[in-house]
């Protein structure tokens, strides 16, 4: 059938433009919040998120709170013996002072040999690059007031943050001195489909582990709730808009049915309009979000990823399809006879 959907949109630009702008605004807001959620999650737990799929272990007594977990050397050695890729790690929040006495909050991270974490010699530290904004440079010496020890800045890495503060990779000996413990909090076994069990230890997948971090869970849950709420709103928008359009067009549908137009063609017409509006609105909001991604102020943790954007776009299309189809169910009920007996549309 000729492109009725397109012709109607061309002829009634105003009303379709209104729907398109609302869908654009809702999808743009959704992408912005999704970018923010993603940025915040990187800011909060980039250190963990950037690891490959695998399993974390902490002691059962820690009751899902990793910084209460203490895995002693014997247990660590048992696990190392059985799994070659494994490493142990600890994360502790703290701060370092520069030569002016100014404090820099950091997340101290140390681990046994692993290719995913930075390793330094005793007395050295590698930071997340964000500390450069506070004037810290390679070669600077920072003091740890807890232990009185000094750390020399050896380098910087990108995207290594934990709990919204930069990570400071330190040597295990420095860590033991600072926090007066030789135990490690966590063990990590990458790439295992099914977590092997170890006595006294509890296994967590990466996602499960991220959800044990209270701030991470609360932050992501609230933002995801907003995202889904916006998606539902967009679905309702389509349903209400097409319902109103269809009510106005009942007579037309009846006449078209009378002259032999298939009901499925009328549905296709509505779906085409929904798809055209959604795709144009999505392209515009993706483009604008990408612009914001490059222009966002440094302090805004905004991260726009193709994967999430693509997933959300598909969800928008599915929701638009469901919304318009639900409202279009009236088309099925239209009787040609009623339309003929009605007056002019």
């Amino acid at each position, binding site marked *: *059938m*000729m492109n*009725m959907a397109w012709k109607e949109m061309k002829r009634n630009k105003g009303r379709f433009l209104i729907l398109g702008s609302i869908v654009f605004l809702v999808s743009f807001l959704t992408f912005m919040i999704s970018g923010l959620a993603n940025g915040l999650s990187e800011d909060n737990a980039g250190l963990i998120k950037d690891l490959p799929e695998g399993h974390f272990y902490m002691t059962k007594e820690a009751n899902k709170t990793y910084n209460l977990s203490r895995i002693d050397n014997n247990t660590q050695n048992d696990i190392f013996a059985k799994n070659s890729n494994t490493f142990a790690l600890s994360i502790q929040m703290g701060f370092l002072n520069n030569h002016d006495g100014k404090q820099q909050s950091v997340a101290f991270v140390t681990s046994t040999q692993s290719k995913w974490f930075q390793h330094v010699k005793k007395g050295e530290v590698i930071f997340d690059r964000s500390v450069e904004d506070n004037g810290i440079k390679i070669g600077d010496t920072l003091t740890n007031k807890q232990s009185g020890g000094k750390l020399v800045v050896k380098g910087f890495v990108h995207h290594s943050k934990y709990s919204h503060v930069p990570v400071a990779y330190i040597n295990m000996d420095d860590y033991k001195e600072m926090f007066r413990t030789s135990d490690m909090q966590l063990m990590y076994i990458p790439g295992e489909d099914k977590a092997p069990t170890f006595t006294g230890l509890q296994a967590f997948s990466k996602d499960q582990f991220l959800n044990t971090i209270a701030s991470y869970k609360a932050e992501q849950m609230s933002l995801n709730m907003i995202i889904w709420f916006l998606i539902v709103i967009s679905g309702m928008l389509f349903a209400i808009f097409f319902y109103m359009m269809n009510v106005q067009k009942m007579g*037309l549908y009846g006449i078209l049915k009378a*002259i032999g137009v298939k009901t499925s063609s009328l549905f296709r017409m509505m779906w085409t309009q929904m798809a055209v509006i959604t795709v144009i609105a999505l392209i515009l909001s993706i483009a604008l979000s990408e612009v914001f991604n490059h222009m966002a102020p440094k302090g805004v943790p905004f991260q726009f990823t193709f994967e999430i954007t693509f997933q959300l776009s598909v969800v928008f299309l599915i929701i638009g399809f469901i919304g318009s189809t639900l409202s279009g169910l009236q088309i099925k009920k239209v009787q040609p006879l009623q339309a003929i007996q009605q007056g*002019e549309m």
Partner: protein
Amino acid sequence: MSIFTIDEVRKTFTNGEVKEEILKGVNLSLQEGEVTALTGASGSGKSTLLTIAAGLQSASDGQVIFEGENLTAMKPEHVRKIRAGKFGFVFQFAHLVTFLTVEEQLLLMLDVSGSKLNKQERKREIDKMLKLVEMDHRKTAYPTSLSGGEKQRVAIARAIIHQPKILFADEPTASLDSKRSKDVMALIRDLTRKLNIAALVVTHDEEMLSFADKIIKMSDGQIVQKI
């Protein structure tokens, strides 16, 4: 030659426990190249008969035979295909698609009927048809800019562009003034003859009967006179 036969058609509506017989065993046949006018007082059953004949509603009893097949026994999809390809419709109001131009209205009908004509042939056919209904000068106009009479001319062109076998017209002049009504009826009569179509026209306007080859008068669900 009879192309379309209505045989003992009855229609009964049930409202609660009350049964009302709208059509009480109606028989008629349509000939190619002829306009058959169906007339009668309001409520006589003429519009119901037309809609049953056109496959827009079912009969309670009886047969509607078109090209040797009984429409009342067919599946809805089969009836739809016949409506799209072999029937043409003109209603009291033009009921044109508001967002299509005059020529697009005809193009839509060619699409719906499954016409095998190519783009060029379609264009030629549309131009020819618009010339026939004297609307070729308004082919890019939208319905909102047409007068009542012009709309009805376009509706007639839409109804016959796909060369149907039967043209059903339900009160095609009811919304027009006397002069325009005569023009429209004359057009239906001329096209019916020229294109060798069988036309069934429902009208309550006695003046319009002069354009019919056959007149069938209905009263109380029955045919009371055939002229």
